[in-house]
């Protein structure tokens, strides 16, 4: 579904991503793990077209997308959920969802407000509340719901568990499992290994903009040295 080959990216002169390779298969949930500043968010921004790739290829559904503008990439069915949520604070929950609305597409689960409120029951009670007056957890749910309104086939999720209370993290894990059952592919950036293990099938580890590990969650769990080196807090 999504394949990244030899991807490089820069912020100004700073070389941030070097030769990143990864793949997400149909219906798969894949975790991209790494410490703060490792390059996870930069990878997602580059894949979603917000940051130009300096070299390398991104394939999505057998198309090259690394030169497309962000809205074209989104319209192909690659949904991006940013780590800092970027809720439109002046807009209500319903209006935030409206901004994300795109026509349905074949091969992807289709969403509407009712279905999203079933997925995130907390949101249902605050349809007309401005995004700026919601808690962090509610905003996190809204930002995912907003991207789902575009009926994506693959979701790029940037640290959905960051800064959330344990109870909300559990709800989030349940929601991601639901998405997986619906047939969505997910690339999930995380620092929280425990959370990632509860939802992902495979994992990559990135450090200083380079891929250090690729394998199943089970293989990662069996290798404490690896976790020590790249993930320990």
């Amino acid at each position, binding site marked *: 579904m999504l394949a990244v080959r030899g991807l490089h990216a820069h912020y100004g002169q700073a070389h941030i991503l070097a030769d990143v390779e990864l793949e997400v298969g149909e219906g798969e949930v894949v975790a991209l793990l790494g410490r703060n500043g490792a390059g996870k968010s930069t990878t997602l921004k580059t894949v979603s*077209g917000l*940051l130009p790739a300096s070299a390398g290829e991104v394939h999505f559904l057998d198309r090259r997308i690394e030169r497309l503008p962000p*809205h074209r990439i989104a319209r192909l069915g690659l949904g991006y959920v940013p780590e800092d949520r970027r809720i439109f604070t002046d807009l209500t929950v319903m*209006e935030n969802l409206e*901004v994300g609305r795109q026509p349905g597409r074949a091969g992807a689960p289709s969403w509407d407000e009712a279905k999203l409120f079933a997925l995130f029951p907390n949101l249902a009670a605050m349809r007309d509340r401005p995004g700026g007056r919601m808690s962090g957890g509610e905003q996190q749910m809204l930002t995912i719901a907003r991207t789902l309104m575009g009926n994506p086939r693959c979701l790029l999720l940037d640290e959905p568990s960051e800064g959330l209370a344990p109870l909300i993290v559990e709800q989030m894990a349940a929601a991601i499992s639901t998405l997986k059952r619906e047939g969505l592919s997910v690339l999930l950036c995380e620092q929280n290994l425990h959370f990632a293990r509860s939802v992902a099938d495979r994992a990559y580890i990135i450090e200083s903009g380079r891929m250090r590990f690729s394998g199943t969650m089970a293989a990662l769990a069996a290798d404490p040295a690896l976790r020590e080196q790249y993930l320990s807090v």
Partner: protein
Amino acid sequence: MTWSSILIQLLNGLAGAASLFLVSAGLSLIFGVTRIVNFAHGSLYMLGLYGAYTLIETFGRTPLGFWSGVALAALLVGLAGALIEVAILRRIYRAPELFQLLATFAVVLVIKDIALFAWGPEDLVGPRAPGLRTPVEIFDKRIPLYDLVLIGIGPLVLGILWLLLTRTRWGTLVRAATQDREMVAALGVDQARLFTSVFFAGSVLAGLGGALQIPREPANLELDLSVIADAFVVTVVGGLGSIPGAFLAAIMIGVAKAFCIGIGTVQWFGVEIAFSKLTLVVEFLIMGLVLIIRPYGLLGRPPAQQRHSGEPAPPLVPPGWKVAAVWLVPLLLLPAAGDRYLVVLATDIACFALFAASLHLIMGPAGMVSFGHAAYFGIGAYAAGLLFKRAGLPMEAALALAPLAAGFAALIYGWFCVRLSGVYLAMLTLAFAQISWSIAFQWDSFTGGSNGIVGVWPAAWLASKTAYFYLALAVAAGGIALLWRVLFSPFGATLRAGRDSPLRLEAIGVELRRYQWAAFVLVGALAGAAGALFAFSKGSLSPSVISIALSTDALIMVLLGGVDTLTGPLAGAALFTWLRDEVARRTEFWRAVMGLVILAIVLIFPQGLVGGVKALVARWRRARA
């Protein structure tokens, strides 16, 4: 004043506020979404007025002809705005923000000449509104019925806009993009189409604002800049991006202006105060006051931090002596060529190079864009002229004291300006420039009013064009050298750090504002020196040395050359001055030619001329290596 005349002035003011609100709402809408300060917005208003004039003449002076003329003019102006967005601005959204500003300056020049070509230089007085000509009697005073209709149109448009923005998907997208347009794009919304539609809507409002004025105001070629100044003031007073704010501010300013006219001249405690002369400055006084009390306008909020993954400004490279010599030696030899015309042109260039270099320091390294830099140039010129003619000082003394006067003005204006940042700061500088202009323009007995001051000639030993050229060259080179010295001193480093990370500076206890204030005074004084030099080279001066047009000329020079290099503004000043001279001798439509040249440069070299040439050289070197 009686109650009835107060009421009439109030109604007059409200009627005048309608167009002000429309044009400002359009400006606000466009700025909110695209972050482009559209200097051409006043030009669109002007087109609306001219367009309505022609269309009504064509359709006939009937109610149907009048209203369909007004509506069609607004629509056509909307299309013109959309065209500007698609053909020009869309290509440079990724360029630095200031470059988009430069492109809109160019559009101003082009539209002015299109209007000159199509409608001629004479003012065109439009028809009164058919069917609404009869005055209404209120108490014992009369007011045209059309004015009452205008008073109703303001709130009507406000209501329609509010419905559009809150009840339609388009409005939701516009409001979302005003906060975070990159996120809107990441959600699959085509920014280009959204921007075009916003430009269309904003331009329709500008065109409608202009077209509705046709029974009240003759169409003329000065409207573009005077309206943009008004619209800036209204937008800033109301709060950038706030449409209800623009409505409130338009009413405040419209009413204040009407009262100034209505009150006329009164005696207060034996002092004669001419309120009618205040009309030109009252809005700027209101703006200054509001910005001091509420730095983001009446209903505005601190601007949302729009995200862009733009490149940071490249470091400045101090120029070497060798490079300076390469430029200076031919200049010193220039009079030997024996071409008197060339010497005069070079003198102009020297004045403008110093002017542009002073603007560059404040807007580039210090990060405070000034839309009103001509204030200091003009005050320097006037100080020189007045000291020479009225105080009877020798020319040398007048020339030496003029920068002090300009520096003193910068001391006062700067105190206010450094309290703001970004677009708000830029608008406040424009306001101060406009206040200075109004004083020069209106104080007939002292400044000579619109005639200015004549007979400002240099001393005998400088009377020859060649001698004066050497003086200008020496002053300009000295001033520029001083600016560059300052730039690479610890003071300059602090300024640059303040531009890049103001919070960090504050955190280590640096009072950035004091540095910025000092920078204001320095560049003000040097701009004043340039103005004084210019005045003595021409032998006369007029209020045009403080005009918005001259302020924008300076911005064009700096931006054309490139903000990110030191020599850029000098090259820009030389190119602009030379080109204007060349083109103006050949065609009446020199503005359009200049505008098209600027547009071509903007589209080809989005880093400015010197930056673009450097990039080309670098590429060529790489290709050879």
